[in-house]
């Protein structure tokens, strides 16, 4: 057998091993999460090695406990879900509002200082969140916005505007210029072109960017911890899960139900928009 033929066989077999390995490592933790969330805690402690759930032990009490309000003896995750939703949706609205005009300008218009502004927008994408944590913590302590969901949404803009600009400018660049030019010839003003032509054409990409921003805000943990830890009624789901996981009072299976509740919205949104999202993120990568 030639060397090329031999390699072809080896790599051909290896490929399936790799594929199986990848499928197991990516899916197993989530399968484990789902299984443990419908098991009573004593079954887990009795036989930790069993990774399925029998019909007799199957229970949804974990979900009831985690979602019920604290007055009813639950963990109040419904309220936390509402908090997370408010913060995340607020962040999406504020971020898109702030980043659309700038992204349009740097991808489409030639103006004085345009290159420098464009470089700045790229640079802030790389600024570390740790540098922002200290001053934002201080500012918010000072003006008393600490412990407010609106304050948190404002802080999240700092996390999401750079990546939002980056994605939007890539999308805007794919809209043919001739369409805008035709509108300009017909006497359309610049703001009208953006509102009536560019934004409708870019609607799918606005959706994708909005979803990505939503995911960042929904998953965020550090700033929620810094700003909201003191007030349990304002916790986001991420923060609530972490705070409860630190203690020993709440059974792990109940917290697994909490993890599922935290994960499902993001993963569902991701699947709904997977193609748009992955193309938006990597659109720069295939130009070497």
């Amino acid at each position, binding site marked *: 057998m030639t060397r090329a033929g031999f390699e072809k066989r080896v790599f051909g077999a290896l490929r399936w091993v790799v594929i199986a390995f990848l499928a197991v490592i990516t899916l197993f933790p989530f399968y484990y999460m789902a299984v443990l969330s419908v098991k009573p805690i004593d079954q887990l402690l009795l036989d930790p*090695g069993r990774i399925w759930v029998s019909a007799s032990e199957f229970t949804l009490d974990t979900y009831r406990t985690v979602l019920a309000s604290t007055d009813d003896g639950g963990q109040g995750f419904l309220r936390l879900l509402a908090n997370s939703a408010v913060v995340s949706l607020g962040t999406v609205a504020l971020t898109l509002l702030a980043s659309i005009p700038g992204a349009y*300008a740097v991808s489409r218009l030639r103006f004085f200082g345009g290159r420098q502004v464009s470089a700045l927008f790229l640079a802030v994408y790389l600024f570390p969140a740790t540098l922002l944590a200290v001053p934002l*913590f201080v500012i918010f302590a000072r003006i008393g916005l600490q412990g407010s969901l609106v304050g948190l949404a404002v802080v999240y803009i700092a996390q999401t505007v750079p990546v939002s600009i980056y994605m939007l400018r890539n999308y805007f660049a794919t809209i043919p210029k001739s369409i805008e030019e035709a509108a300009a010839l017909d006497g359309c003003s610049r703001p009208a072109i953006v509102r009536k032509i560019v934004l409708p054409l870019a609607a799918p990409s606005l959706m994708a960017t909005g979803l990505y921003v939503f995911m960042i805000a929904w998953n965020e943990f550090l700033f929620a911890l810094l700003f909201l830890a003191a007030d349990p009624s304002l916790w986001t789901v991420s923060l609530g899960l972490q705070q409860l996981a630190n203690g020993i009072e709440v059974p792990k299976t109940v917290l697994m139900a909490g993890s599922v509740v935290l994960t499902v919205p993001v993963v569902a949104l991701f699947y709904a928009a997977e193609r748009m999202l992955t193309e938006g993120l990597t659109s720069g990568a295939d130009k070497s």
Partner: protein
Amino acid sequence: MTRPSPGTSARPAGPPGAARGRPARRTTAAARENRAGLAFVSPTLIVVLAVVVLPILWTVLLAFQRTRLVDIQTTGLFGNWTLRNFELVFTSPGFWSSLWTTLLYTVGSTAGSIALGLVAALALRRPFRGRGLLRGSMLVPYVAPVVAVTFVWEVMLSPQYGIVNEWGTELLGWDAPIAFLSQRNADVSVLGVQLPVPVALLTVIVFEIWRYFPFAFLFLLARLQAVPNGLEEAATIDGAGLWQTFRHILLPQLMPVISLLAVLRLIMTFNKFDDVYLLTGGGAGTDVVAVRVYEFLTARFDVGAAAAQALVLAAVLTVLLGVYFAFFARRTQEEAQ
């Protein structure tokens, strides 16, 4: 200077009839575009300056003042300048080892996630049944909330009821459960030599690789699919094996993306707080610098020291990137040509 230069895909200057041979109208159109550009960019610019650039500048100011959170209401923006914060940071116990830990953690996670991402991209390159499904599910570790996935890992790795230790002791014959997240070192004998292995740090690095290889996979797959087929066919006809084709045809094509990924992951991981804090709380030899910033801020309310620590972290990162660009980026450029 705002006039469109020839060769670029500039907008036409003004209405067609007016443009030809009338420089005056061209300038007007360019000026109009200039005004529109400034008008469009300013709201975004103001927001970016207000929420990102100004706070970071303030971090720099804070790092040179002895400020604690209690007296933040009374001190002004410009107080007494001092280097005391940096002195405190550099002489605080465990600073240098923490920097070293951060470096190991960053390099290990970055290299590992890109390597696994590359393997994954190569394996999923050609279509097979269920590829789309697998491709989608491989991205889930990356998009799932960090608090949820760290919690699942914690339970999986628990010495009392975790699946990994259960299977390890039952099926693989481990002597005792391993405390993956709270054990600093373990001695492993390799060929009769006792080697100390940093258990918790390795676990955290493995977690990072698991969580971020999808990111590398996504970029590398996109690039792989843009490689023209002819290149590989030509190599195969010339008798090249798969390994040679990969080494001399594919890898040079992928190098620019790999180096971009390396820079991105290096920056993101170096400043990572959530993952380590949630898995180990910064204990058992995993005290990366970002966790120390958080502790200065919340445990001691020492704003000045926290700012100084964050600044030192950023400075080290800048040096690291400088070294990277000086050595690796140039080589990549040469290989790509």
